[in-house]
């Protein structure tokens, strides 16, 4: 029961999607299943929030090291959640003002939910991603060594593309006439050839490999050969 039903569910859902792809008569089945899938994807956001709350509340109750930070996480989570779900401070919908704030947009620019998005979420997320610029620089200094021909090839490509995709490339190889026989040696031209031919060839081969791998893993799951997703344990 605990194993068979999940296996059946996975196979049926998957094969409906496959059949729906090939026949217009079964198209609506596929749509229906996909809609359920999407609803579950939204429920997964709630599951994620619930999990986060569970983990951090446990950290607080166990007084694990850094539990104070978990308090901050829990409080910011609950505040943001309340403001958003309650549509707190949201203006009414101009089409239906008699419905009050409930019919308004949750991210209305007068709401505290929007304020917290604009002045905390946005700068925090953007800056956390901005940090990557520093780490990539540090890694470049420490890790990229031309130890052999292959590594040299990688570095040379990186140089050409890095320079070729800015005004530096144009400036450095400006002495090569753009309509002469050696125009291809201009950095911006070289970048294009590297990207369009060599990069395309490499990524295309990788894509073909990944596609075969994905298809075979999917098929294994649908046929019940790979059951690892159900997990082991009591059954």
């Amino acid at each position, binding site marked *: 029961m605990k194993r068979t039903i999940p296996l059946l569910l996975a196979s049926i859902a998957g094969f409906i999607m496959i059949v729906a*792809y090939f026949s217009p008569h079964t*198209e*609506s089945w*596929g*749509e229906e299943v*996909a*809609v359920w*899938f*999407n*609803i579950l*994807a*939204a429920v*997964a*956001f709630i599951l994620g929030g619930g999990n986060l709350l569970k983990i951090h509340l446990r950290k607080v109750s166990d007084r694990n090291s850094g539990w104070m930070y978990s308090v901050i996480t829990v409080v910011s989570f609950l505040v943001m959640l309340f403001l958003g779900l309650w549509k707190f401070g949201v203006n009414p*919908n101009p*089409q*239906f003002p008699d419905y009050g704030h409930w*019919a*308004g*947009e949750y*991210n209305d620019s007068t709401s505290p939910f929007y304020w917290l*998005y604009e002045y905390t*979420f*946005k700068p925090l*997320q*953007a800056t*956390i*991603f*901005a940090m990557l*610029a*520093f780490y*990539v*620089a*540090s890694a*470049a*200094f*420490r*890790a*990229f*060594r*031309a*130890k052999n021909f292959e590594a040299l090839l990688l*570095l040379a490509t990186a*140089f050409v593309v*890095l*320079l070729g*995709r*800015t*005004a*530096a490339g*144009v400036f450095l190889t400006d002495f090569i006439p753009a309509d002469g026989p050696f125009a291809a040696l201009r950095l*911006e031209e070289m970048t*294009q050839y590297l*990207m*369009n031919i060599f*990069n*395309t060839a490499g*990524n*295309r081969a990788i*894509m073909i490999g990944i596609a075969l791998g994905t298809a075979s893993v999917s098929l294994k799951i649908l046929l019940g050969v790979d059951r690892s997703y159900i997990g082991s344990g009591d059954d």
Partner: protein
Amino acid sequence: MFEYFRNLDRRWIFLLMLLSVAVPIYVIGKTKETFPETALPLATNVFNEIEALQPGEKVLLAFDYDPGSEGELGPMATAFTYHCSSRGLKLYFMALWPLGRQMIDDNIAKVIEPDFPDMVYGEDYVNLGFKAGNEGVIKVIVTDIKQFYTTDARGTNIEQIPMMEGIKSIQQMDLMLNVSAGYPGTKEWVQYAVTPYPKEIKLVGGCTGVQAPLLYPYIPQQLPGLLAAIKGASEYESLVIKAYPPAEGKEAKYMEAQRRMGPQLVAHVLMVLLIVAGNIIFFIERKRGARA
């Protein structure tokens, strides 16, 4: 001396990186000068695909990004919105990323409301908002939008939105523009929309630097044009501004990517120098090691 550089505190590198970005931003912010931009074929193709549409034709703009990638993708989203509005197209916005809805609202507030006050919501542009489900959403709307979208982001009944009349699926769009920060993004649109309906759905887009090389194999058969990272955005921006000059005093708003090519240039040169410096240390080290 050699030992010092070999064991260099990485915070010096961080500082260099900070300066290489901050100083050009300051200089460009003060002088308001940008580098001249020549558009390469991929960006030109994106531009031409939009130009090929007649006023009143329908274009779907899927903004699949968030503040974490706004530095790269914000300018191209703005340029797309500006170009399509200038061209008089009908704009259908949607998002597969939860933050995408906010990105759409930001672009409407930045471009359409101040600079195209004659455009009417529901007739000239509509925000269909975000739906959860990633490629699952594409799977549904590629054959039936109303199966999944009953209202737009503002809670208007989709049946009562004039520009949604007669639209069964995204196959009726004359062009699709995607701004992609990762999964789900351009790859999924190619796989689930363009590949099964190559005649009906035409897609061009812009993506982050991380994704760009991975999308090249789709070019040009499945993806005729692509704005690759901030450089692609900058090239496209220059084409758009040249074809549709913004009102006086508003040019700068539509030159964000071109300004950002300044820090880009200095930081790229810094990266090259860092790799060279790292390798010089490596070779000295290897020579000493061989001698010892």
